[in-house]
């Protein structure tokens, strides 16, 4: 099954994501879109800088997609993660999953975003409205 994985420094194209997972035998597409919100842990956020170890991130996307297909069968998967600065409302990640029926697409899409949050080498530096910046505390890969 063909999958599409990318680290993008350009705005992520949602229509391209839908096209990438289109398949005549698939009757369901589930999509997750992550966006930058204007607050975190009580602080007013202006935007986020995303740092990515591209090569390992793409390998991680391939590994977790393989796990998803092993669990939910024939899937077509698109994953694009943004790298660089995004203002409030900017799209940081798009995951699209298609499958013959909706249940597999919903479950696999949820699995993929949770796996990316835990395992993918991506970091966020929040920019606050008061001008300060801070790296977001995340999940140690020691625990994987």
């Amino acid at each position: 099954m063909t999958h599409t994985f990318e680290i993008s420094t350009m705005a992520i194209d949602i229509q391209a994501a839908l096209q990438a997972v289109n398949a005549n035998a698939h009757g369901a597409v589930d999509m997750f879109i992550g966006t930058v919100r204007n607050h975190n842990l009580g602080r007013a956020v202006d935007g986020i800088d995303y740092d990515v170890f591209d090569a390992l991130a793409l390998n991680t996307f391939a590994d977790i997609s393989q796990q998803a297909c092993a669990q939910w069968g024939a899937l077509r998967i698109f994953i694009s993660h943004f790298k660089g600065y995004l203002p409030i409302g900017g799209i940081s990640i798009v995951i699209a999953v298609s499958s013959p029926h909706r249940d597999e697409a919903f479950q696999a899409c949820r699995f993929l975003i949770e796996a990316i949050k835990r395992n993918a080498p991506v970091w966020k530096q929040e920019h606050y409205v008061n001008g300060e910046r801070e790296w977001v505390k995340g999940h140690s890969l020691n625990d994987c």
Partner: protein
Amino acid sequence: MLTFQIALYGVFRNCGVSSVTLHLPAASRVAQIKSQLGEQLAHDYPNFDAAGWLAAAVLANETRVLRDDEVLAESMHLAILPPVCGG
């Protein structure tokens, strides 16, 4: 001696450089490389809490995270990865 060029990501970028080069004896373990990285960062960037961040960080190559007890037999490019938060 082996040479390891270690790329810095996330909070390690606060050091102000994109990578650090280390020279270690042949057949060094990953834990030894992390330890020497900590010493070098603490020496070169005393305002950065290298020990604190390294405790939760891992070394990786382009395909996988490396275990602390692995032995590296040749010079290579690595990356130090603090806790992640994608999405």
